[in-house]
């Protein structure tokens, strides 16, 4: 039982600490740094425990015990935990500087980060649809609050309301899908049991098809995939910049972790050849249709995201559309439905987390005065602030997928995985949309380096905790680009 407790500890500990931090928050009065450091230490503790349990996967999940087999242990869930914890720490550092610069430092933001990490690690550890649902809701409800955190600013509250109404609407579809899958499989909620049932083909295919489609609708809402991406640009633009960075990276990674769990269980490929029957043939039809559904969503998502980003004048909104496009690339790994595809997702969401949070930190620093963030505000940044311009340039190259930065090996892995699974056309669409995306990523660099502004920025940006976030992100974007094999091998061994 104690082993059981230890293995699931990232989930239990983050939940317990999230509750304790509210009390710390309540009793610490005006002292804001206490909450900050408590959140930091909690995140580090959760990260260490995840790293410790990472190699313990493969051990059988004990029946009974603490979680009654509803929580998966170690392995890839722990890698996702580490991703969420790093995103949380980077956001924590950057948000303190950002909120001070905006003159609205409220310490609740630090506890919200811990709550979001708790929800996301619950998703990554889910072994049961009920746990998955609870995790998704903990994460989403925290994000609604984060989006509306600047409660006296209309844009922030508008973003929160849009996110809340559409997110709750999507939740309806998500659980209706879960209910129908529960019915189709004859009363199963456990992913392993569902996977075993799928292999026998002994399910109700009408309920299964409708349920799976509704589940995909609900989850593609959470990853901001076409045609359910409409909320993303508005919410990402209106929300506080650091909250946007956190939601669009860790939140997306968590939703993809949920998609991996669902598709891994529900789209099996290793049917027993001795058992071929009508049911199995219908089952293979279902898997093919499901993959095509996700492939079409993926292709349209990246095209729509990149083409819409081209016409944007606002940098935050441009990054929001580029985030939609990246959801499309990441879905390619789900389409391939193989270990290569899934490890591509893990690698790319890790690299994407560093570059996107880094880019949003730069946007947050520039935004400092009177909330400007148009493309033309970046003119001549290379002269007034060469370091900041260079770092932003690295993130833009990495987002565009240009070597030697972290975005390139990630994209490469996903493209190869899609080709291996027979979706060559999807890779061609992805390459075309990547070429479109280079236009606006390089466009920002052109503004920073090759245009002179009439009103040059004069203010200097001093050292703060946000600088720490920028340095860490830059180092990891470059490291992941030059030495990708370490992480790739680690992840592949854990599935």
């Amino acid at each position: 039982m104690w082993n059981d407790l230890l293995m699931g500890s990232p989930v239990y500990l983050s939940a317990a600490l999230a509750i304790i931090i509210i009390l710390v928050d309540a009793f610490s009065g005006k002292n804001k740094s206490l909450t900050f450091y408590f959140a930091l230490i909690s995140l580090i503790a959760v990260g260490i425990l995840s790293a410790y349990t990472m190699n313990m996967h493969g051990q059988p999940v004990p029946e009974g015990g603490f979680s009654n087999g509803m929580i998966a242990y170690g392995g890839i869930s722990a890698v996702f935990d580490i991703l969420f914890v790093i995103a949380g720490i980077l956001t924590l550092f950057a948000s303190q500087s950002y909120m001070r610069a905006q003159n609205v430092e409220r310490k609740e933001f630090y506890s919200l980060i811990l709550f979001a990490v708790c929800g996301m690690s619950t998703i990554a550890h889910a072994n049961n649809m009920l746990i998955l649902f609870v995790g998704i809701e903990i994460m989403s409800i925290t994000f609604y609050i984060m989006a509306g955190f600047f409660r006296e600013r209309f844009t922030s509250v508008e973003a929160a309301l849009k996110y809340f109404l559409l997110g709750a609407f999507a939740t309806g579809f998500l659980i209706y899908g879960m209910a129908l899958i529960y019915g189709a499989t004859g009363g199963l909620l456990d992913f392993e049991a569902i996977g075993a049932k799928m292999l026998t083909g002994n399910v109700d295919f009408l309920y299964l098809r409708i349920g799976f489609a509704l589940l995909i609708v609900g989850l593609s809402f959470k990853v901001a995939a076409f045609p359910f991406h409409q909320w993303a640009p508005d919410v990402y633009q209106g929300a506080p910049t650091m909250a946007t960075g956190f939601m669009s990276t860790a939140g997306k990674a968590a939703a993809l972790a949920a998609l991996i769990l669902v598709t891994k269980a529900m789209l099996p490929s290793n049917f027993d050849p001795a058992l071929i029957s009508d049911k199995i043939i219908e089952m293979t039809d279902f898997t093919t249709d499901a993959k095509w559904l996700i492939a079409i969503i993926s292709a349209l998502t990246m095209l729509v995201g990149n083409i819409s980003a081209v016409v944007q004048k606002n940098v935050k909104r441009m990054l929001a559309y580029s985030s939609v496009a990246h959801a499309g690339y990441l879905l390619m790994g789900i389409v391939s439905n193989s270990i290569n595809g899934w490890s591509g997702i893990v690698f790319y969401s890790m690299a994407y987390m560093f570059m996107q949070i880094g880019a949003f930190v730069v946007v947050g620093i520039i935004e400092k005065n009177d909330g400007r963030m148009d493309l033309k505000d970046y003119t001549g940044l290379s002269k007034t602030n060469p370091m900041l311009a260079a770092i932003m340039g690295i993130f833009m190259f990495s987002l565009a997928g240009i070597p030697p930065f972290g975005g390139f090996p990630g994209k490469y892995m996903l493209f190869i995985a899609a080709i291996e699974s027979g979706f060559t056309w999807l890779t061609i669409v992805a390459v075309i949309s990547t070429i479109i995306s280079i236009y606006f990523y390089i466009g920002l660099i052109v503004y920073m380096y090759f245009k002179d502004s009439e009103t040059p920025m004069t203010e200097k940006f001093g050292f703060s905790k946000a600088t720490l976030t920028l340095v860490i992100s830059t180092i990891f974007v470059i490291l992941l680009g030059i030495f990708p094999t370490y992480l790739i091998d680690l992840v592949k061994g854990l599935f």
Partner: protein
Amino acid sequence: MQAIPIEYYLVLSGIIFSIGTIGVITRRNAIIIFMSIELMLNSVNLTFVGFAANFGDSSGQVFVFFVMSVAAAEAAIGLAIVIALFRIKQTVNVDEINILKW
């Protein structure tokens, strides 16, 4: 006693779910949209309870308790957001909340 066939539950919950969806799409008052969403969640609860009764399996009924508690948490956050909005703009009509556009 003859049990009610599962299809009856599913048709009823399907109808309620559609009414909720149509409400979300056509209504413009944030509170009424939220009530429609609650209707959708309740139709899902009905589906779960129907299946659980049909299979004689209690996990579907447990799921319903979680859905209800999550819906309560969501209601708390949602109403807080609507109040924050009303303080700034004295309206809850979603058509008037559209300064974020391209």
